């Protein structure tokens, strides 16, 4: 994109948003009140990297695929590749967004530093680039856009514009420390889709009206400047993975299900949404068709949509992305790759793997393991895959917030 064009779109964006960032954010063309922050750089070689490479030797995948360490990125969660394909932005559940660059273009990152250190971030889990180069960052209770972040990430100060001002994503009284990781994606309709996990294990009855109105325990959508906000999805417990089918444009998303009901229920979920306003069952259903104890005697709302795939209970299905590249064998085209983070309260631990879901022409979905080996023989985690994104060359990146790393999976053939 030419610089003139960028400047024009920044101006258009700022105008459309009609908001000047508050607090310690920068004004639209101003600088941050905090002054220059220093960048933090993450060391990419040494013992930690060697240790991770050794663990990756245990990872089993179908023939012809290989996995490498792409970058060391602390607390790595949701990822988004900038349109030019050279800079990856990575969200965390702490206070940093990391910028990962591959300057020498050898397919392995060579620099990892924090994005906009002069700004403060609060659980900036969700990151998403638009095709025209705007970086959206969804935090616990704030959504901002960084125009042309791909070109302006070198300095500590960057231009930031509020999409949803701080404190307005959810009512401030509903802010909590549970299920606060958001994901944000841009639909085929050029709108933002933002997941809002509800903070409980099972949402209590007295909160349901408020949640329905605000989209907590749901997915909301809005124009890219924050206007025309509406609830797109109801009955979500805590989703941190979503993507749009490259052909049908339908939204598919994962959901994490109710804890403490036993080892084998309720199942985890991969959902397919076919229209706005559908209800997926929480809190009447704890996952799949399993009713929650709390609402066992209540009548659920009519028209509940059950998951497209019910997954093994408590494996924690998190980030996901459709494969639309050309590098992998043909059967993976338009399949979903998703990360199972792994259980924490199951007698026989499960998860810590990458799954693949094939969808047939009738929309029927079938999930199977794709990459496994992050759980060692002591049943302890050596890593926990968290999310997936695709590179321009058709390789796949997998983030791991336990190891603090990003892996690259590519197809090299036999």
């Amino acid at each position, binding site marked *: 994109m030419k610089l003139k064009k960028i400047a024009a779109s920044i101006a258009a964006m700022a105008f459309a948003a009609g908001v000047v960032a508050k607090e310690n954010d920068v004004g639209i063309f101003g600088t941050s009140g905090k002054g220059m922050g220093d960048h933090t750089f993450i060391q990419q070689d040494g*013992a930690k990297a060697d*240790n991770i490479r050794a663990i990756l030797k245990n990872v089993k995948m179908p023939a012809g695929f290989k996995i490498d360490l792409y970058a060391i990125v602390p*607390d790595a969660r949701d990822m988004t590749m900038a349109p030019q394909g050279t800079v990856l932005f990575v969200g*965390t*559940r*702490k206070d940093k967004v990391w910028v990962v660059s591959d300057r020498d273009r050898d397919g392995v990152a060579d620099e990892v530093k924090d994005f906009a250190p002069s700004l403060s971030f609060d*659980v900036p889990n969700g990151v998403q680039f638009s095709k025209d180069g705007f970086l959206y960052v969804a935090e616990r209770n704030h959504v901002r856009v960084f125009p042309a972040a791909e070109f302006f990430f070198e300095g500590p100060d960057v231009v930031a514009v509020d999409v949803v001002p701080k404190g307005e994503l959810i009512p401030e009284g509903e802010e909590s*420390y*549970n299920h606060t990781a958001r994901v944000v994606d841009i639909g085929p309709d050029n709108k933002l889709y933002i997941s809002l996990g509800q903070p*409980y*294990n099972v949402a209590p009855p007295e909160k349901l009206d408020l949640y329905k109105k605000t989209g907590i325990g749901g997915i909301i959508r809005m124009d890219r400047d924050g206007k025309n906000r509406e609830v797109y999805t109801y009955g979500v417990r805590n989703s941190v993975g979503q993507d749009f089918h490259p052909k049908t444009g339908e939204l598919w998303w994962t959901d994490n299900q109710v*804890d*403490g009901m036993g080892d084998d229920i309720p199942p985890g979920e991969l959902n397919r949404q076919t229209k706005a306003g559908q209800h997926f069952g929480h809190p009447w259903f704890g996952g799949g068709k399993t009713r929650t104890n709390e609402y066992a005697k209540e009548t659920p709302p009519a028209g509940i949509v059950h998951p497209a795939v019910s997954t093994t209970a408590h494996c924690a299905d998190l980030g996901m992305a459709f494969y639309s590249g050309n590098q992998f064998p043909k059967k993976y085209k338009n399949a979903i790759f998703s990360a199972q983070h*792994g*259980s*924490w*309260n199951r007698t026989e*631990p499960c998860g810590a793997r990458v799954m693949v879901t094939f969808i047939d022409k009738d929309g029927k979905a079938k999930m199977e393991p794709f990459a496994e080996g992050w759980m060692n023989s*002591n*049943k*302890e*985690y050596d890593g*926990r895959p968290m999310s997936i994104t695709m590179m321009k060359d058709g390789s796949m990146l997998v983030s791991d*917030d*336990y190891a603090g790393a990003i892996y690259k999976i590519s197809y090299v053939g036999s």
Partner: protein
Amino acid sequence: MIMPVRSTRSHTSVANHVKKTPAQAGVFYFLENKVPVNKLIIFFLSLCLSSVAIAADMANGKVLSAQCSACHGKDGLSRDPEAPNLAGLSALYIEKSLVDYQKGARHDRRMSLIAQGLKKSQIKDLSAWYSAFELTAKVPDI
């Protein structure tokens, strides 16, 4: 992975930490306040009995800690932004926290569920395990 864990620590040092319980501190209270000797003997007897009951099995703590490491890290350094480090916390505090989660005096969506599944002896074992980790801290230079 670098694990700041002293895994060869002997049972004597576990016994050491048992000696530091408030019940023990109470002994000094009795001594300083000149409590009659017969009462003291009974107190010591009961103390011996309870010491036997609470001798922690660190090796078992290590085994049990596999279910904690997803969040608190194998090295007791947290991997989950909502979870604290456990490495080097006092055994007493770990034990108290777990009992508080169990009894509802403290509530957390996940810890309360986890604590439900732990027996008293397992709590002791886990507390002995994590309290034995050794840490060094690097204080920021400002």
